[in-house]
């Protein structure tokens, strides 16, 4: 592949950092807000260096109050700003959940379209980093159930860069789930590329025997699963959803009509999770194409466990392969 001056090899966290930098440069109305986002650059350093270069009025260290962060971001958006707020960890979003669900999500509709709230809520989410309680959760389904919000989650550096650009440009509130265990994974980012639509799923591995659907941190796992299955002669397709709401059912349907089998993988609890929605809709759409029931692999209906047990809780290579085998056995 030809080297391009606009193509960089970046860790996912750094790709978001560069994307935020670009947004701050492009539009003086873009603001970064959150706990520790300034001097420290965020606990994951995603906002590293931004306050130094853009000042405290653009990159704003906030009081430790999540509802306050989102609530004031709403007010700033009403004044014409485009705030990008950071919730430090997934489990800390709940004090802000009221503002997100009752205010951020609904104000556009309540105002009959007169008010737009271009707020991005960044949430580092998911497990696998050996963290303590409330630092490893995957609450995306709780947000996807709420109309008025858009929910996305990149799986790689390039998507992280471009999806952040698109989220900031969106006039709708976007909950941007960042797969924290992939923050340090590097990938090529072409900063001059023309990105695909924010909510379109992407086939990241072509296959014919079964479709694995995932997003965020589970995409890499599914690619590993597909590679392992290939050694056993199984040809799996891997679809990276990228967006949980809207959800690109057309792409899933197209893949399932080809492979006739579907396994959905996510870290969040399976019960009432995004996999349930996918299974239900794909069953409606592809009933006569399916050779097996849609299977789901994910977390249990239990609190996220202490770090020493998280590998038991999280979908791993073997659990997904087991589901693949079960689907293929029908």
């Amino acid at each position: 592949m030809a080297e391009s001056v606009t193509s960089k090899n970046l860790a996912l966290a750094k790709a978001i950092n560069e994307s935020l930098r670009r947004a701050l440069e492009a539009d003086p109305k873009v603001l970064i807000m959150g706990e520790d986002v300034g001097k420290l650059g965020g606990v994951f350093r995603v906002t590293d260096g931004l306050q130094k270069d853009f000042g405290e009025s653009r990159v704003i260290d906030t009081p430790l109050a999540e509802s306050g962060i989102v609530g004031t971001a709403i007010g700033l958006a009403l004044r014409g700003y485009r705030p990008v707020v950071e919730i430090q960890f997934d489990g800390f979003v709940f004090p802000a959940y009221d503002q997100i669900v009752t205010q951020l999500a609904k104000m556009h509709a309540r105002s009959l379209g007169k008010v737009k709230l271009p707020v991005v809520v960044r949430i580092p989410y998911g497990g696998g980093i050996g963290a303590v309680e409330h630092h490893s959760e995957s609450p995306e389904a709780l947000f996807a159930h709420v109309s008025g919000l858009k929910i996305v989650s990149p799986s790689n550096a390039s998507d992280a860069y471009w999806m952040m650009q698109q989220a900031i440009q969106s006039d709708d509130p976007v909950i941007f789930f960042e797969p924290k265990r992939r923050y340090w994974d590097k990938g090529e980012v072409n900063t001059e590329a023309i990105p695909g639509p924010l909510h379109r799923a992407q086939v990241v591995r072509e296959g014919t025997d079964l479709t694995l659907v995932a997003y965020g941190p589970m995409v890499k796992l599914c690619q590993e699963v597909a590679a392992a299955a290939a050694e056993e002669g199984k040809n799996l397709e891997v679809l990276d959803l990228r967006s949980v709401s809207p959800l690109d059912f057309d792409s899933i349907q197209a893949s399932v009509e080809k492979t006739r089998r579907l396994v959905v993988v996510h870290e969040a609890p399976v019960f009432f999770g995004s996999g349930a929605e996918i299974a239900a809709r794909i069953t409606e759409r592809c009933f006569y194409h399916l050779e097996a029931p849609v299977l789901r692999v994910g977390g249990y209906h239990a609190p996220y466990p202490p770090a020493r047990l998280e590998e038991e809780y999280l979908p791993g290579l073997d659990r997904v392969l087991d589901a693949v085998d079960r689907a293929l056995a029908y």
Partner: protein
Amino acid sequence: MTVESTAARKPRRSAGSKAGTTGAERTTRTTARKAAEPELVQLLTPEGKRVKNAKNAEYAKYVAGVTPEELRGLYRDMVLTRRFDAEATALQRQGELGLWASLLGQEAAQIGSGRALRDDDYVFPTYREHGVAWCRGVDPTNLLGMFRGVNNGGWDPNGNNFHLYTIVIGSQTLHATGYAMGVAKDGADSAVIAYFGDGASSQGDVAESFTFSAVYNAPVVFFCQNNQWAISEPTEKQTRVPLYQRAQGYGFPGVRVDGNDVLACLAVTRWALDRARDGAGPTLVEAYTYRMGAHTTSDDPTKYRADEEREAWEAKDPILRLRRYLEASNHTDEGFFAELEAESEALGRRVREAVRAMPDPDRFAIFENVYADGHALVDEERAQFAAYQASFATESDSGFAAGSGGN
């Protein structure tokens, strides 16, 4: 507690003169509301007399130049707002509105603060600020859409710098703070005002808005209408200290104003807005007032409060006291009141007719404006809904539904 300690405390409690003793404090606290009148900024007594004292001197100058015409204007605003409110209550009783949150008794707090605002200021109301809406020029009939159930808002917030009503208690104080942070960033000299009640003062969002506004020195005025009751819960269930004193802990001033005194509300709000414009940051104004009616038409205040309490507050009626002052000062003649009465009736009639004429929204409005940029699922469900609706048309066309008697 032992018998001995109880007995030991008794003499001190009954002595009553030793303010500051433990016993005295406890007695005062538990009967705070029934105790002496709280310290208020007041410019007009319930008898309609102007007051001049050390406490109000700082604020009185903000209404020193108020003209008889302006006073009549405040009176007119209060009377028309009360008439509108009464009409809305009646419309609810007649089944035309699903619910109504009456402002009866709070006219002075709302008109006084509302008339202190400049056009470029921005208001974040809760759901009872009909008088403030009036001052902002929002047509009162637009306030009724959400209570009739034809929309969830009904006006363009940017049309009059009057945000939509917020039903979740206290949420809007953060929106106001964020908006004010934006005003400061823009270098504008307008101010923002957030309305909320004594019940909302218990909400975390209100506390967080105090924190954020203080930290960022946001040009926002927090206007708490302490109407004594949060549905059935009295102020004592919300706080153990007078609400205006909360501000001190956040590092900005708080002031308690007689919420039934329109002049005092005007003066104190002007003062607070001036502070905001001058870059001095937030202020908490506690307008000490009383909700004469129910929380909403759904509740029954006779179950939780005594008639005597309401009667005591009726004597402090905000409209009556300004009328007394206007009459004593010869600022009006009989013609003024008669004309206003006719204007009130006309407003009532207009509101009544407007509500009854309010069309139900188009059924496809369900899917409108859910997202600014659109959403595939909404598109899909709209199409399903349309197909479902169309199926009835087909039945009707084929004569299937001919027996239903419609035309």
